[in-house]
């Protein structure tokens, strides 16, 4: 169970997240849509403290953090309860595909090398990249890198997986394989919060869609309702634009 209350983030004098409340049930798959610059990435980044919110309370499973007062330990606990898939993959450039997945297991979770390696190979198998285990990121295609990026996030076994436009940086030919992998993650009822512009994917995978504008959640609901009969005028305009 994820509970967010009053989450607020400012850059200088601009309020990028304006008093956000959000609950996500276990196993729920939530997709965030909205125009550029409305704080979608910032919402995800605040949930694992890549950006530090000014105010709000974040509860993820047993971890509960008051943003205004969060110390080093709170921040680490929150980050360990979440995992992040980046738009630009952000694989560790000095680690092979397998080592990228092992890194969190060994360094952060303190598992043995052998155990981490076995888990990494298992995950690589699921991502269809077992044969690339010993390749460095520079030698992988964008789609392969992002599949490793998702594998790295899966292996952690975090309560909540965050995806920030995981297919936006990809050449069109690689988008399909990454979305397929995300579908497989979703089938396991992994709790996911996904920012994407792939509307048909959103419609298919989401239990609920959030529409953000101007740092607020303007409208939300199951894809069928939200996309077919949008109430808010801004959402109507947005949907006309993205088709």
């Amino acid at each position, binding site marked *: 169970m994820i509970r967010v209350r009053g989450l607020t983030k400012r850059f200088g004098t601009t309020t990028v997240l304006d008093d956000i409340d959000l609950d996500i049930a276990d196993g729920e798959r939530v997709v965030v849509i909205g125009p550029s610059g409305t704080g979608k990435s910032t919402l995800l980044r605040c949930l*694992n*403290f*890549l950006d530090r919110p000014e105010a709000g309370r974040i509860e993820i499973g047993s971890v509960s953090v008051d943003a205004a007062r969060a110390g080093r330990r709170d921040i*680490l606990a929150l*980050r*360990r309860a*979440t*995992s*992040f898939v*980046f738009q*630009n993959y*952000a*694989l*560790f*450039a*000095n*680690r*092979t595909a397998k080592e990228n997945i092992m*890194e*969190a297991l060994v*360094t*952060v979770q303190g598992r043995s090398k052998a155990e981490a390696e076995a888990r990494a190979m298992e995950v690589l198998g699921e991502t269809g990249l077992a044969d690339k285990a010993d390749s*460095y*990121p*520079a*030698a992988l295609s964008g789609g392969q890198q992002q599949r490793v990026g998702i594998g*790295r996030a899966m292996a*952690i076994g975090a309560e909540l997986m965050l995806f920030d436009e995981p297919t936006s940086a990809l050449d069109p030919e690689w988008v399909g394989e990454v979305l397929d992998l995300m579908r497989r993650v979703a089938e396991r009822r992994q709790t996911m919060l996904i920012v994407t512009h792939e509307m048909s994917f959103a419609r298919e995978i989401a239990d609920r869609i959030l529409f953000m504008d101007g740092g607020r959640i303007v409208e939300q609901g199951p894809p069928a309702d939200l996309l077919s009969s949008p109430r808010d005028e801004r959402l109507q305009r947005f949907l006309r634009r993205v088709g």
Partner: protein
Amino acid sequence: MRALDLDYMLGLVPVILGYVPLTLFMAAVAMVCALILASLLAVERVVRVPGLDWLVILFISFFRGTPLLVQLFLFYYGLPQVVSVLTQINGVTAAIMGLTLHFAAYMAEAIRAAITGVDRSQWEAAQSIGMTQGQMMRRIVLPQAARIAAPTLVNYFIDMIKGTSLAFTLGVTEMMGATQKEASGSFLYFEAFLVVAVIYWIIVEVLSQGQKQLETRLGRAFAR
């Protein structure tokens, strides 16, 4: 113009070669110490520990801003007069200390620049999986910074090897000191210093070959 005394030069080669180990020893020890110190200084410069930052800036500024020879004299001849435990210090130790501090200051700047050259996304990925600052630095950032800084650091190592010749001013009989002694006995200054110059040159050339291999190794992960 007179002809070079080739027999004398050939005879001198093994004598000077006998001092190569001492020169390499001083340079190697100073390099290891300087690398460790420089990494600490560089990390401090990046994360900015309050209360420590000004001290690091001052240290780097002083040791970059004054000649190595002056620093060596300060350590060897000057400091023991003020700090009594240092009266025991011998020339080799003083030279290693001086080289360490001097080059640590330069290398700290090179490493700091390399750390800031590591892509932001690498830091964020490390943070996102819950690594501590230390883990992120040790396992992700510094190894990648090493690759960026390697060519510069090897150049400093080469400078350091040449810098060990200054130890002779502290009374250490290393390659340069030995050559000086030989030359003042034979009065064949040109021959003697030519021999030692060529030996330094060869050492540096051999190292430059090693540099290429090191760079290939560090670049392995980044090759397509």
